[in-house]
């Protein structure tokens, strides 16, 4: 009998279903990966297993069956849960050492010599041995997550539940987190349930569960799952009733094209084909007037922003050229959003010079005439929650002084082209994240800008919507010839950019075209590895 068995678990909220009929089995020492976009039920299932929310169905751990949070009390001593969000379980005003003391006390761990030896080992593994006196508020995002993890491990749980521990964390810290996890499961025989936003991490897991639409759509070993879809994956070729994404074509019917190696992400595309949920095709029509852009659209020289003694951006030079997609990459807290906000004038610039569309920017007045030329999509898609999609778009169009008939025409066109026409009278909160994302971009495109600033638009969005999103950016560049600056914490998305800039803790550590980066790192298999080498060099 497996150590952990989840049978037919369903979690219902007031208005929606969190996860439907989920089942899984896990043996001691196994790492089970939960992979899927935001809102597909990963967290709901994790919270049900941790016994912190009500659920239907049965969970058996170590021979103890439970059906409700109350019954789960009996095994709570065995469980360690780390919720989603960086540093969520930490207190800014306690030091690293005080955190360990607090978590040991609250879990009533016997503090004998063995405990201190274990504690020191954890600190060492997390690389925090020298920082026991540092306040948690002054740690970097990666260190915070490592501290959260060792605090969760302190009472030696046998069932570890980690909800997106690596999202937004820098690549080096992510490697270290995985190493800690690997050591612990080997030494303690712990079952680890880990959800992640990064497909590449699936290689670290013994079994993966793929989540889509509140259901588990596939489970098993990574290689087996990828092997299963091989017959449906072809090299890019024209076809009907199929999907063509990122240079591959997916089709259930045989195609007259050579097969190619599938990746984990491709399982989601094949699943969409099988369930006949073909995503709408993205198109971009011609704009109403031409694009006139200087050679250098944006130039920043030594741009610096300080918050008190903290330097968010430290003398950053950057250029955005005509008709280019520039990717600004970095972990959470690297200074990406701050940089974009300085470019837009939402934060004052502490030091440095900025030129936008050939105009030096010295005060807010210099920006007045540029407003009509810049489009901006903020993090988390800033929209009015109380207004429907149509009302939101009409409002933005009005604020841009677009005549009503023209506004209605453009809104209708974007709704068709970007595939959200059926959602026009819904409220943003009830839409899938991917639809929200495209409709936010539509709002930023209404006035037909020549430069587009996008702040983490792909965060948490499902694989298909993300692929469509990049397709949309490519078309925008191609058809409109505009320049796009986009930030992301997915290192793998660097591939879709023309040029990338990598930030680490407010400093620029790489700035080159995608081809050059590949050329200068011939051994690297993926962008993840290229960036890792930059991180190591600038440690």
């Amino acid at each position, binding site marked *: 009998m497996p150590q952990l068995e989840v049978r037919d678990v369903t979690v219902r909220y007031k208005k929606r279903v969190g996860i439907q009929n989920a089942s899984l089995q896990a043996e001691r020492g196994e790492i089970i990966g939960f992979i899927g976009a935001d809102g597909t039920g990963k967290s709901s299932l994790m919270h049900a297993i941790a016994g912190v929310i009500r659920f239907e169905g049965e969970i058996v751990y170590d021979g103890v069956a439970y059906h409700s949070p109350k019954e789960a009390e009996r095994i709570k001593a065995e469980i360690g849960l780390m919720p989603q969000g960086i540093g969520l379980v930490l207190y800014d005003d306690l030091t690293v050492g005080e955190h360990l003391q607090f978590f040991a006390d609250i879990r009533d761990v016997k503090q004998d010599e063995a405990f201190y030896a274990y504690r020191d080992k954890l600190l060492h593994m997390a690389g925090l041995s020298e920082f026991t006196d540092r306040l948690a508020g002054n740690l970097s995002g990666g260190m915070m997550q490592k501290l959260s993890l060792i605090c969760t491990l302190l009472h030696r749980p046998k069932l570890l539940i980690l909800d997106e521990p690596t999202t937004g964390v820098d690549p080096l810290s992510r490697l270290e987190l995985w190493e800690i996890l690997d050591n612990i499961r080997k030494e303690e025989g712990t079952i680890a349930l880990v959800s992640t936003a990064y497909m590449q991490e699936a290689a670290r897991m013994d079994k993966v569960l793929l989540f889509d639409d509140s259901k588990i759509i596939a489970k098993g070993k990574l290689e087996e799952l990828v092997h299963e879809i091989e017959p449906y994956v072809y090299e890019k070729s024209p076809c009907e009733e199929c999907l063509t994404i990122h240079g591959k074509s997916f089709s259930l019917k045989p195609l007259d094209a050579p097969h190619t190696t599938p990746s984990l992400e491709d399982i989601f595309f094949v699943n969409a084909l099988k369930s006949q949920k073909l995503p709408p095709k993205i198109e971009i029509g011609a704009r109403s007037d031409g694009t006139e852009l200087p050679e250098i659209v944006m130039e920043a020289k030594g741009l610096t922003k300080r918050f008190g003694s903290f330097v968010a951006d430290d003398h950053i030079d950057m250029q955005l050229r005509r008709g280019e997609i520039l990717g600004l990459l970095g972990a959470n807290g690297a200074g990406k959003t701050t940089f974009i*906000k300085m470019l*837009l*004038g*939402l*934060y*004052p*610039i502490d030091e440095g010079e900025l030129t936008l569309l050939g105009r030096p920017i010295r*005060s*807010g007045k210099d*920006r*007045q005439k540029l*407003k*009509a030329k*810049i489009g*901006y999509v*903020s*993090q*988390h898609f*800033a*929209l*009015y*929650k*109380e*207004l429907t999609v149509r*009302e939101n778009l009409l*409002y*933005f169009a*009005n*604020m*841009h*002084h677009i005549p009503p008939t023209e506004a209605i025409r453009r809104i209708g066109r974007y709704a068709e082209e970007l595939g959200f026409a059926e959602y026009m009278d819904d409220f943003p909160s009830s839409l899938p994240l991917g639809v929200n994302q495209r409709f936010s971009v539509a709002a930023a495109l209404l*006035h037909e800008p020549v430069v587009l600033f996008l702040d983490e638009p792909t965060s948490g969005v499902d694989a298909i919507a993300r692929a469509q999103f990049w397709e949309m950016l490519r078309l925008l560049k191609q058809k409109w010839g505009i320049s796009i600056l986009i930030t992301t914490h997915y290192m793998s998305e660097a591939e879709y950019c023309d040029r990338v800039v990598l930030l680490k803790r407010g400093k620029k550590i790489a700035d080159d075209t995608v081809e050059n980066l590949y050329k200068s790192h011939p051994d690297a298999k993926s962008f993840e590895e290229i960036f890792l080498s930059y991180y190591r060099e600038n440690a």
Partner: protein
Amino acid sequence: MRPFLITFGKELLIFLRSVMLVLVVLYSFTVDVYVAGQGVEMKPRNVTVGYVDKTGGGISQKILSRLHMPEFKPPKAFLSQKALSEAIFNKEIRVGLVFDRDFAVDYRKGRPAQLDVLLDATVASQSLITLIYLKNIVLDFTDLAMPLQIKTHKLFNQNADTHQFMALSELLSVITLLVVILAAVVFVKEKEDGTWDIMLLMPVSPKVTILAKSLSQVFIVMIGTVIAVGWVLMGAFDVPINGSFWAFVLLTFFYSFSSAGIGLFVAAVSKDVMQVAQLSIIIMMPLIFLSGAWTPIYAMHPILQKLSLLSPLRYYIEGTQSIFFRGTDFVDLWPYFGGVIVLGALLYLYGFRKIGRLF
């Protein structure tokens, strides 16, 4: 002008879609004002009286018979002063009268007679007013040969009806509270959701957006005020309106506008709705204390009197009472309009600078 009207309309639509908010605003302008007017009582009412009578009746019973409903409950007899003190301690009795043996004797002989009164001073105002009642009653028993008589003329409020004052004061407080919080929340919610950044980047002057957003909340409060004046003040409490109703509407408009300026200030310095709640209370309490809503300004410390000039509520209360009760002419209201407008303008200038610009 179009961006202004569009933003104004959008804010009203968002308000109407927040059912809870609509209910809270309606409640504040109707039930809350009514309860405050009905519930707060300055005159003694249902005061419990206890007494110890060692005189054997007569004069003492005559005095006690003057304490009747609705001001006083029927006096209750106690055997000893100790028992009476205990009852006062246990809040069963608020006012205790002790007629000792010498009281009747001294009174009959024409010597100064002493009546001991025990008061529960935790209910200070009711106790003190009760004491004044008692003095008046005792005065009737005192044979004074004084050719002096008081003839009272109650001005502006013939029945000295405190309900009207309380209801009006509560309405003014509700207006202040709601307009500050509503205005602060419409800005902070946009800051929280990130839509404010988008607004700043629109080719529309942020001043227009700020004015449209705050005026939409002023408009909501004005509607509420009209409901409260029509239904509650005039309907339930028969508050007279001796001055011009339109003068009141205009003064309310300017006052709400300057209070929305306070809301704008609160929004400019807070990060989220939680901070708005905390800050509004910290800022509003002194404004209300200093406004003269609870204590007449002439009774305050001289320094506080000067400070009260900074509270827009002070001008509004004085102005409103002048309009409702005194029937002051429109032109003579200028100091109140002036005070409210100047303070409001200063707050908006700060708000424009603090949240309404790009760098």
